[in-house]
């Protein structure tokens, strides 16, 4: 099998204007800050981003928002980023809100080669207004459609050159699902181990889902423990 390692420049240069990009992470853990910073440096425009949240002001996704690179977010919430809320309220950013587990399942659905699923989550709420309804055995349900993307940008704790991935602790969150649902999967990794050095039973994302690996020379401050006065 061929090694998938590449430079961060050439990995991000694959992304084009108007592409849809999934970004792993729930808050800080799992957010690929280096890939996002590189995307901010390259400056692709009119992007649609699919992510659990919009990070915090001044971090990760927020750099892309401040650059005006993002037309639309598909998220479960943006509560931690006042800049994102402001852009949305000013009508400069389209935001589609999804219940968190439904967002995860729509991504998984695309990744599993399925065309939708039925659920009652949110059926009595305003989030259900534009969703098709399907009756099954006398019960009315919402049809949720798969979410797919041109690219996924993910952060792994460990990888091998074939693209097998291991995530740390709560940094797993959306990443294994997004790895299945995007046309090209670009992964930054803290450690690149030799092939065979990862225990097969410990692998969260198997190599067929991964296209490009970028080994991080170091972690920037954004990855660290943040003092927030909580």
């Amino acid at each position, binding site marked *: 099998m061929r090694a998938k390692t590449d430079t961060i420049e050439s990995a991000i240069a694959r992304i084009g204007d108007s592409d849809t990009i999934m970004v792993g992470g*729930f*808050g*800080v*853990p*799992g957010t690929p800050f280096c890939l996002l910073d590189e995307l901010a440096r390259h400056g692709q425009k009119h992007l649609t981003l699919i992510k*659990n949240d919009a990070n915090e002001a001044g971090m990760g996704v927020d750099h892309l928002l401040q650059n005006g690179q993002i037309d639309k977010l598909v*998220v*479960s*919430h*943006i*509560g*931690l980023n006042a800049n994102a*809320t402001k852009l*949305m309220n000013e009508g400069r950013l389209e*935001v589609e*809100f999804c*219940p*968190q*587990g*439904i*967002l*995860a*399942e729509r*991504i*998984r659905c695309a990744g599993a080669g399925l065309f939708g699923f039925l*659920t*009652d*989550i*949110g059926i*009595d*709420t*305003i*989030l259900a207004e534009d969703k098709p309804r399907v009756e099954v055995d006398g019960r009315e349900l919402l049809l949720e459609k798969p979410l797919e993307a041109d690219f996924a940008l993910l952060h792994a*704790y460990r990888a091998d050159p074939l693209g097998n991935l291991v995530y*740390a*602790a*709560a*940094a*797993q*969150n*959306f*990443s*294994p*699902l997004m790895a299945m649902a995007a046309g090209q999967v670009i992964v930054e990794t803290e450690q690149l181990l030799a092939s065979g050095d990862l225990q097969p039973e410990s692998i*969260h994302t198997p190599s067929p889902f991964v296209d490009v690996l970028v080994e991080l020379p170091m972690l920037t401050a954004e*990855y*660290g*423990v943040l*003092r*927030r006065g*909580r």
Partner: protein
Amino acid sequence: MDAKERMMRTVAREIKEGMTVNLGIGQPTRLVNYLDPELSICLHSENGITGVGPVLEFDQADRNLIDAGGAYVSTLPGAAFFDSSVSFAIVRSGRIDLTVLGAFEVAMNGDLANWMVPGVFAAGVGGGMELAQKARRVIILMTHRDRQGKSKIVRECSLPISAKGCVQRIYTDLAVIDVSEQGLMLRMIAEGISVDEVTAATAAPLHIPEQPVPSF
């Protein structure tokens, strides 16, 4: 013990041995500080953890280990990490025995509004809808009135709801109220508060039992 501490201790009694529990962001999360340390429960966090342990100080924090509210947490022996799809499979399949959530409004039929105030607060729903709709028991921990002094317990929600008829019990700074098929039932009352004060602060019909109401 002040009134708030008595309220938190009263709510904490909802959490029983062996339960799998999800505590909402904010005040509900702080309930862990009021639990009997001997109690064995499983705390679930939406970002993919079962077996969440106490919150850690800055110098002990693990950068990869936060709860859904962003606090740096520890894990207890027997903890597990998993992806977001598995995390919400736990919720939607009814494995959460109890969730404690905050609220903007609770209606007399148990409708819950806790995610959006149009034009004021619309940052998204996170995992709140799934918890409200699918946890086996949904209890609310909130102030009885909003900052303008308006009752948060109402006949019908005026705000966009999170789930219909999902709330079973409401804990406030004034009272403990059950949502039942017969309507709202006063169960407990805060020390120093009268039944009339609770009734006056509640914008929905409230059934008062004939026997004296215990205080907390």
